[in-house]
């Protein structure tokens, strides 16, 4: 009787900001119908890094704090959403650090209410300041190679290129620009924004990016926890596909006069 061979899969460790993770799916916590939905989605997906934002407390109504719904061992990535320039982003990051849940920050500087596109230049400025101040900085940007290089120099822990416009669920409209990042940028690449379906997440991972963040799609789904789980699975599948070495596309054959025939002439 033949023995079945055990496929030896090494655990795929994701190193980010000096920590080691086993899940490359990051979950955003905005727009959920309820905090419980959010908690269930974290659990179902196994996400180890979640984004949160900072807002003024509501002095009239006293709501439960979201922290109650996020497990102790999760890495908090505070989003500087609301910041319209580097100064505001820095201020928000420093306030967030005071909460005592670490000093990881996703720099999101948006001064555009129509498309919610990030201000790449202000993001670089904020990164320089915060990285020097000891933060683990993950800047969210439109995929511009020059900006990415500056972010690397500034000490960013990763770059977060958008897949497509925030909330659009359009997937990887910026695919080829993200591919340039994969080829040229050596720090982790976390695709964020526009990820509307698990297939988008798998597509990004197959290209060789390091992680994917999704928020809107999960939060607004009929069954958020189930979709969160699907995303986590898709990220894993895409990652394994990438590691296995996908077969190269075949070159197109065309019948035209031979280019190398001259080598065989008498």
């Amino acid at each position, binding site marked *: 009787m033949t023995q079945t061979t055990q496929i030896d899969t090494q655990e795929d460790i994701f190193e980010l900001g000096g920590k080691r993770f086993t899940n490359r799916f990051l979950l955003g916590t905005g727009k959920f119908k309820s905090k419980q939905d959010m908690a269930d989605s974290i659990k179902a997906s196994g996400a180890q890094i979640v984004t949160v934002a900072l807002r003024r407390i509501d002095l009239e109504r006293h709501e439960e704090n979201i922290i109650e719904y996020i497990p102790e061992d999760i890495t908090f990535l505070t989003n500087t959403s609301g910041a319209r320039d580097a100064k505001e982003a820095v201020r928000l990051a420093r306030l967030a650090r005071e909460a005592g849940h670490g000093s990881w920050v996703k720099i999101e500087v948006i001064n555009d209410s129509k498309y919610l596109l990030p201000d790449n230049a202000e993001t670089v400025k904020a990164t320089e300041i915060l990285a020097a101040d000891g933060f683990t900085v993950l800047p969210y940007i439109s995929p511009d190679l020059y900006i990415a*290089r500056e972010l690397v120099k500034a000490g960013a822990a990763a770059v977060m290129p958008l897949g497509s416009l925030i909330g659009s669920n359009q997937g990887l409209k910026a695919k080829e620009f993200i591919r340039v990042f994969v080829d*040229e940028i050596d720090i982790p690449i976390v695709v964020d924004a526009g990820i509307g379906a698990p297939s988008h997440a798998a597509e990004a991972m197959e290209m060789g990016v390091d992680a994917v963040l999704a928020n809107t799609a999960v939060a607004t789904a009929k069954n958020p926890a189930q979709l969160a789980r699907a995303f986590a699975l898709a990220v894993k599948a895409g990652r394994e596909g990438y590691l296995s070495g996908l077969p190269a596309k075949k*070159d197109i*054959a*065309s019948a*035209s006069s*031979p*280019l*190398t025939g*001259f*080598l*065989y002439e008498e």
Partner: protein
Amino acid sequence: MISFSEIQSILTDDSRERLESLARQSKQLTEQYFGRTISLYAPIYLSNYCSSHCTYCGFHIKNKINRVRLKPEQMHTEMKHVAATGIENILLLTGESYKATPTSYLIEAADIAKQYFTAVSMEVHPMETDEYKELFTNGVDGITIYQETYDRTRYKEVHLYGKKANYDFRYDAAERVCKSGMRQLSIGILLGLGPLAEDLHSLYQHLRFLEKNYPGVEYSVSFPRLRKIKGRDFAICDVDDKQFIKIICLTRILFPREGINLSTREDAKLRDNILELGITKISAGSNTSVGGYEMFPPEDQDPQFDISDKRPVDEIVQMLKKRRFDPVFTDWRPINNNRGQSPIFSHLSQKGLE
């Protein structure tokens, strides 16, 4: 990045179909990124003084040749001659002698060259970043420097002494060129000198490192094939025409946006056919002896390598046009044209190089 075993597999695959497929991909990519432009240039050897002993080279220190180093007036003579053929892109070469052709000499040569040509490149001894910077601020646009072979053992065997024997100094020179602000860099290997698959792999890694870390530099690659000098052969492997074409095509496929140069070491028939397959820059009307254009008659010349394609510039241009290529003499012209009455402008209107 292609793996070593993939390179080996391509080199050992003898099938016509594979070769044709590589050629098709290469042609398509070249036309996509370069159109059908072919840049033209010519070499001028300023000096054959050399302090190194590279066993395969016509100029090495032990060879009994007439050592010549052009004086400024002689540079004018040679350059005037080449400029009159229409060439605007000049490659100035010297043997590797820090004493005979120091930076100051090279700067003087660049100054004179700028009076005749719009772009000046140099293929000279490897130097420090500051020296490359000096050349750059004095009008040199590009540097050519070949590692010859990336195999350390083989490198040691063929570079017996002199500064060229220092593998790392030479290897790192490419990066120093990039750091200096130089616009163009050309690297390459001498085909046949070292183990082929290994050398290609190392060359590609070197190029990838440079383009990733110094993205503002314009890169090109050259593949001179080792030819005989004075009847002796230093090649350890025979790179035949089929292999040569595979190398050109593979390079084009891996580095679609970078230039690939072809010198007159190759014969006319091969040159003409290989133009379709990824080449973007060729030399024309070349002479590889110091003072070989005007100063010395052929019998008194000591060429660095033997030229196979002896066609003058006019003929090359005609051939290119016949094959529907777009011959380009220069990529740009300086706005503050601080050249005096240059002979080449009258030449251009006379000959109507259109």
